[in-house]
């Protein structure tokens, strides 16, 4: 089939004259689209009022917030699972076919979800946006990673940081876009959700096509002009190549799994509680009448955290090219432990400016943790199947996505039941997260070079055409 062959890896090998700086925008086109998933909360209230038509007064048959919350949870779990399952397939068939599969699943997930909204079928919504869309998220998330690392052996952190920054930026685009579309369609369908899903599915599918048709892979023997691999010996930067199947047999893979799990779980602790945390810690009661943080200001705080999440992905990942990955993660954890432990005290002392500054730094390191991990994996396992290894590691993200909110909600509710209010109600949440970071710090410190017995024997090549 002619169209299928155009998607093959062999058809994406860059010819002379191709500029490698076209690859980051191709990767960004995918990540900016699938990053919409983090803006799903914008649909929560409208989806919960499809029958009543009033977001503040749901009808008896309307879906509850918990039922709607499962849509995002399923998508995130499927993100991790599909990234793990389809990683080696991606390495074989190349990024273009994987990006197309991602675009079909992600766009298709919206369309199926739209039918679910139209028929008021929660199961169809779970299947569409959650299951099918989640597969699109997983394949899309890892699709450009190994390609970027191969194009930018001299700036692995910068290149992957740029792409993964796009995932953070995706929510910033997806949220106002969805709000505008729902407002536009509100008279033609309940809450305007179903047509919004259709339009977003089509827009994202088309936007992702830019990535599909722009992406190229370098030839096996390609290197940047003038690039000389560093002769400076570093035990943590391998010259060998480890397959994805062998990587999961190494302690280093599981140490990095713990590193990602703890960093993400702790970050979710802040993101989950951001709005109520700042309102309850800096209420009129603690700040004085009329000086407390309002709902609008709290929304501004959440927006500010999103910006630092985005900036941290690029800043920290780029810095890791100079600092080294292990040192960068030691900063995330070492500084993180101090800052997480400081948050309740700042809330208790009503130091709003410092509180906001500390939260922003924490979230920048949360984003940085996501963006630096592909380069860390490439350093330890080589670039041969780094996309597939990264995919398997993302199961830590799925685990954190479930674990983080569970820990936060349980600890916060327990403190409230004990009669604590304001910042004090969040004290154990942040101390527990600081404790989790200690575990992450120890795991990171334990990372050493991968035993050479896991390396592939002889030169490694990727099958042309993916057959």
């Amino acid at each position, binding site marked *: 089939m002619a169209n299928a062959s155009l998607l093959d890896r062999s058809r994406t090998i860059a010819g*002379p004259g191709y500029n490698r700086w076209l690859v980051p925008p191709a990767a960004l086109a995918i990540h900016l689209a699938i990053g919409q998933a983090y803006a799903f909360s914008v649909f929560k209230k409208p989806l919960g009022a499809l029958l009543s038509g009033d977001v503040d007064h749901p009808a008896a048959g309307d879906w509850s917030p918990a039922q709607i919350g499962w849509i995002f949870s399923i998508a995130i779990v499927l993100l991790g699972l599909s990234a793990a399952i389809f990683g080696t397939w991606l390495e074989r068939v190349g990024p273009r076919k994987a990006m197309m599969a991602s675009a079909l699943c992600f766009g298709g997930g919206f369309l199926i979800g739209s039918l679910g909204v139209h028929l008021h079928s929660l199961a169809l919504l779970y299947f569409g946006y959650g299951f099918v869309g989640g597969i699109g998220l997983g394949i899309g998330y890892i699709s450009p990673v190994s390609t970027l690392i191969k194009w930018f052996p001299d700036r692995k952190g910068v290149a992957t940081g740029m792409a993964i920054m796009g995932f953070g930026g995706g929510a910033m685009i997806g949220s106002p876009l969805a709000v505008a579309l729902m407002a536009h369609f509100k008279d033609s369908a309940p809450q305007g959700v179903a047509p919004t899903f259709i339009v977003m599915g089509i827009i994202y599918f088309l936007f992702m096509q830019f990535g599909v048709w722009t992406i190229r892979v370098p030839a096996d023997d390609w290197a940047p002009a003038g690039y000389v691999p560093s002769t400076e010996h570093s035990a943590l930067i391998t010259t060998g190549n480890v397959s994805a199947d062998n990587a999961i047999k190494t302690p280093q893979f599981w140490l990095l799994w713990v590193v990602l799990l703890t960093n993400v779980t702790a970050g979710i602790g802040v993101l989950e509680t951001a709005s109520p945390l700042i309102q309850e810690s800096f209420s009129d009661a603690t700040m004085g009448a009329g000086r407390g943080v309002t709902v609008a200001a709290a929304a501004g705080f959440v927006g500010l955290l999103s910006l630092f999440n985005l900036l941290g992905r690029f800043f920290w990942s780029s810095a890791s090219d100079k600092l080294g990955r292990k040192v960068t993660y030691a900063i995330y954890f070492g500084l993180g432990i101090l800052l997480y432990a400081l948050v309740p005290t700042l809330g208790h002392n009503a130091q709003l400016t410092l509180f906001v500054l500390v939260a922003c730094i924490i979230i920048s390191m949360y984003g940085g943790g996501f963006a630096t991990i592909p380069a860390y994996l490439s350093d330890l396992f080589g670039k041969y199947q780094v996309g597939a290894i990264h995919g398997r590691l993302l199961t830590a993200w799925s685990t954190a996505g479930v674990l983080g909110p569970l820990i936060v909600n349980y600890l916060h509710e327990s403190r409230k039941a004990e009669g604590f209010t304001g910042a004090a109600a969040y004290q154990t949440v942040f101390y527990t997260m600081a404790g989790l970071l200690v575990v992450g710090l120890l795991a990171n410190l334990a990372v050493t070079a991968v035993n050479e017995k896991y390396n592939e024997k002889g030169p490694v090549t990727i099958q042309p055409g993916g057959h």
Partner: protein
Amino acid sequence: MSAQPNSSAPAPAETSSTASLAIAWLFVGIPLVWGVAQTFIKALALFQ
């Protein structure tokens, strides 16, 4: 920085002009800047 010729997988030459590079970055840059600006405006509420 452009791709160098290789022996293992000959591929046709393709020229990436400055214009195509600029268009590619604008294609993803404009929505990203729009999204960042929207978020920044929202974040300003914290300082009012």
